[in-house]
């Protein structure tokens, strides 16, 4: 099982963002699992994705566990500086997500057009799922955020790209209270909030649903190495039925790792192009690293 060629060499260093204390449990657990299989492994935690993206261009980390927005940042900085970014793996639960826009069941808002002049609650300002993609969806339908309707931002933990659920919960609560006319959230949180009572039964109606998109991925820059190849191979070989990793997979929210793909980032790319969300950051880092 051990790969003797890698044993004893410098560890593969992964970067992850500390959006929750459980991140330490997850990566300590995976570290032990990888090392048992002959892959020297270590990880570095960042307080925000921008710091992590910069660190990868400074070669501080070999692999970045990136949010979709961080992926676009990395991909664009790489393109601007003659590098190549690659998404090598992702969770099954990162694929084909949708965001939804909900309204109170008793309102007359039956079409997107009727949001004109209303208040739309969103999550963190840098959240792909609770802010950028749904606002992009509305903009594409002809309703420019901030002009056609008011945007109420519930900005929990900026820099963490909406990984923390708090912003979406606050947006939904604002809707239920009547402080907002619509709220944006990821599909899975709609089920969660319906089950835990944040969204009382029958209180809200789904007004719109975005096209499917993908979420996080493990990003590498440049060509793969024996270490990143082995990392990917070990990830894809993890089985949920294996009790040694099941608890870690549960914490990370997946049943299996899948090969990375970049076909699911178009809705977010369109939104950030429209809003110019990451242009300044990309230009600054590209200028420094180019």
């Amino acid at each position, binding site marked *: 099982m051990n790969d003797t060629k890698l044993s004893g060499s410098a560890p593969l260093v992964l970067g992850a963002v500390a959006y929750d204390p459980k991140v330490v449990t997850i990566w300590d657990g995976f570290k032990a699992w990888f090392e048992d299989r002959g892959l020297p492994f270590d990880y570095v935690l960042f307080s925000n994705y921008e710091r992590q993206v910069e660190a990868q261009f400074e070669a501080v980390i070999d692999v970045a566990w990136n949010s979709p927005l961080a992926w676009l940042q990395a991909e664009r900085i790489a393109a601007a500086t003659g590098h190549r970014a690659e998404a090598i793996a992702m969770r*099954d*639960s990162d*694929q*084909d*997500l*949708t965001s*939804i826009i909900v309204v109170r069941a008793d309102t007359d808002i039956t079409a997107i057009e009727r949001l004109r002049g209303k208040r739309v609650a969103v999550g963190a300002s840098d959240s792909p799922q609770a802010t950028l993609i749904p606002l992009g969806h509305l903009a594409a339908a002809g309703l420019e955020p901030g002009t056609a309707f008011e945007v109420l931002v519930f900005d929990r933990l900026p820099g963490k790209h909406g990984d923390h659920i708090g912003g979406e919960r606050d947006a939904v609560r604002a809707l239920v209270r009547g402080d907002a006319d619509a709220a944006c959230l990821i*599909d*899975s949180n*709609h*089920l969660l909030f*319906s*089950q835990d009572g944040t969204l009382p*039964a029958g209180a809200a*109606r*789904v007004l719109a*649903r975005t096209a499917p998109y993908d979420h996080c991925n493990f990003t590498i820059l440049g060509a793969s190495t024996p270490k990143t190849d082995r990392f990917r191979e070990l990830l894809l070989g993890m*089985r*949920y*039925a294996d*009790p*040694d990793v*099941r*608890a870690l997979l549960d914490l990370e*929210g997946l*049943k*299996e790792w899948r090969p990375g793909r970049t076909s699911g980032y178009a809705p977010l790319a369109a939104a950030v192009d429209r809003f110019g969300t990451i242009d300044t950051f990309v230009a600054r880092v590209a200028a420094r690293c180019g």
Partner: protein
Amino acid sequence: MRLEPVRIDLGDLGFDEGGHLLVKRALRRLSPGAEVEVGGTGPDLELHLATWCRAQGHRVRPGSPAASGALAAWIVTRAADAPGEADGLGWPGAARAGHADASRPGAVVEHPPATWGLAARGARVEPGSPDFGFTLADRIEVWSDDAARLYAQAVAAQWDPATAVPWSASFELPDDVEDAVVQVMTYLIENETAALVIPSRFIARLHPHFREVMQLLAVQAADEARHIEVFTRRALLKRAEPGLSTAGGQASLLTLVQEPDFPIASFLLSVLGEGTFLILLRFLEEHAPDPVTAAVSRLAAQDEARHVAFGLAHLRRHLAEDPGFRARLASAVLRRHDALRHTAGLNAEVFDALHLLAAGSFASSALRQGHRKVQALLAAMDQGRKGNLERLGFSPTEAADLSSLHTRNFM
């Protein structure tokens, strides 16, 4: 051969209102890769079904609404890595932790794995459960087939301190006699406190696989809690504070509290200590100067008899499997005797109090009579210990030697 997919129609039942239970039940009955068709009219059904399937690792695709007669339908394919009925609804490799019924062969195992943890005996335990580190985890050290019966008996025999004792009985004792009662109660309270602390410490270390033993020790600790209550209440019936606690008495109890080995602690506490105490409590009932003292002594003695019975039962079982353990029990008595060699033993105030209670008054003839009764008490205690030691297989000579080395503090 491809089987027709199973169909479920949720009607207008929302997925969040319990619809997921129906889908989950259907999927559990399928083998990995098999399909179930889900139909329904709930407005958020498709959204919730897709989200739930993604989180569970199942795949979902649109089905044919006409096929199920519902407004819309989806086909769900069961994930490969999901527990199903074929696995007893647990993960493959889940092991049964013995059997619930202790009388079944193999129900109580010799060395239950630490990862069975708090699981009910007989439950299927998934692999990967944490290690609780229970240090009392060998059947030979703790188990008794009598534990379940003694536990049931203990639960049925629980008396209510508020009603079982005639607290409002009217009596007035001479000051000296009341003081003697208070001194004896003070002594009883600290001994019963030791008897509460010792099983409690072992409960926390005991593997819960030995459920009946754990329950019995818990009810034993609860017995001692009631004893402490009634002895305290009797001590304070006519006085503001209890009497004297001596260094020698506490030193004797410390050797019990510090004994780390369960069977040895059980031997010293339950068989020798509480066995001796049982005779003391019967003596107190007989010579009690008032109905309250008589009642609290009688009630406590009932419980102590059970504690002695459990100690004897599991030690006899242990010795039947490991006769060499008898030598360790004997050396534990010697060790304790050596440790207490330089202490005073029984509180002289307690001894004098017992003498006075047996005498009933300060009249010379009564005192002489009391002295004889206390001597008879000590002889009865010695007889009782020897009897218990012989029940554990010690020869009459060994039993006599060991009994003579028992602490002068009785417990």
